[in-house]
């Protein structure tokens, strides 16, 4: 069964099928939200919300639309709702510390871990939109076409924005490296 046909079944009242969609997609969605929020526990909660929202707003799923695009649209909304509600907490510094736990240190050199923390700190400095684009295209390795479908814009536009975001990330990264 394709995701699309499962979603259509959900739309027609077979709500239990949402759990199949959860099983198939919760990992990338969790990773997306973890990198957006920099908070692992929160990302788990939000991931749950994404799939519950999928069910609640099932009637707004347009049949024939690519499921993955819709799923990420819902995920983006969940994140942005959360962000709007907790704006003040995010205002200055994203708490990269919380994410540290999840970076597994055991089999890696110290250098590797440090670089990863540096990377996440630089990511945290980016605007939400830039961070989102990088998470989708570089961390989750989605094609520009797929991201364009999610954001409902053109591939060319996405490419330009991603390139700018990478440039900004590079600047932050080496700026922070200097400080350290």
């Amino acid at each position, binding site marked *: 069964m394709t995701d699309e046909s499962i979603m259509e079944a959900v739309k027609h009242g077979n709500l239990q099928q949402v*759990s199949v969609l959860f099983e198939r997609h*919760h990992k990338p969605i969790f990773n997306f939200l973890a990198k957006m929020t920099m908070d692992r526990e929160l990302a788990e909660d939000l991931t749950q919300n994404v799939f519950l929202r999928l069910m609640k707003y099932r009637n707004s799923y347009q049949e024939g639309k690519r499921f993955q695009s819709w799923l990420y649209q819902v995920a983006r909304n969940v994140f942005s709702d959360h962000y709007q509600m907790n704006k003040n907490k995010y205002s200055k510094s994203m708490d990269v510390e919380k994410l540290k736990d999840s970076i597994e240190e055991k089999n890696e050199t110290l250098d590797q871990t440090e670089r990863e923390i540096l990377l996440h700190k630089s990511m945290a400095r980016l605007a939400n939109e830039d961070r989102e684009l990088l998470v989708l295209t570089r961390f989750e390795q989605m094609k520009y076409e797929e991201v364009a479908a999610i954001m409902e814009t053109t591939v060319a536009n996405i490419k330009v924005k991603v*390139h700018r975001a*990478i440039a900004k990330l590079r600047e932050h*990264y080496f700026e922070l490296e200097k400080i350290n």
Partner: protein
Amino acid sequence: MSAMEKEKLESLLIDYLDGALDAVNCRIVEEELSKNYRAKKILEELKEVMSAINNTKAMQSSSSMQLKFEYSLAAEILLQQKPKQVFMKPRIYRAAAAIGFVFMIFGIGYWVNKNQQQALELANLKNEMEATKKMLMTMLDNRQSASQRVQGATIAYTISKPDNEVVNALAKAMNEDPNTNVRLAALEALTKFYQEEHVRRILIKSLSDQKDEVVQMALIQVLVKMKEKGIIKELEKISRDTQVLKAVKDEAFTGILKLS
């Protein structure tokens, strides 16, 4: 090098690293790299950032996540079906559902420690009420679909003690909704809470404000059944009003007889 050029160069370098350039552009980039020190530096930096990205491991969510989700999903489905099914069920069913719910919370408790468990329990019960309320208000507000609004009003049957926000939303629907069927459904829902003083007052006030004939009739019947003698004056006024539909007048007249 101007900013514009720098942006263009960096964009080309990213494509270069991605292997997204054709032969011609590849040569252009390589030529630039051979003579432009800054370009080379940017390329090295980009390489490092990108390898850092590629070396990040996917994060693992906790193993209980799927299970937790199954529970929330079950609770949510229960909630979704309520407006359709639960409101007619005898109390015992509702009690059973509540007990089932507590068991579910208990089940989750295996994966969370005890303190969190209590917090979760409270949060879930509160969420459930909030979710029901939100659903009711959202559906009552759906301008495009009268059926959705009717359904919204019937959600009120799942609420045992309504707060002011819910009562006011229902009152507004009863007095102002353009659709008769929606007004009736809202009246029905309010009738369920007739023992609340606030709701009684709303029903009595609606009798003089109500413009919809069918709702007027239903409202008179409800108030008469509630033995609300205070409405006799209003009923007399209605029974004398020449603008009013005959059926409404008859209803008012019957009401006067029953209440006096």
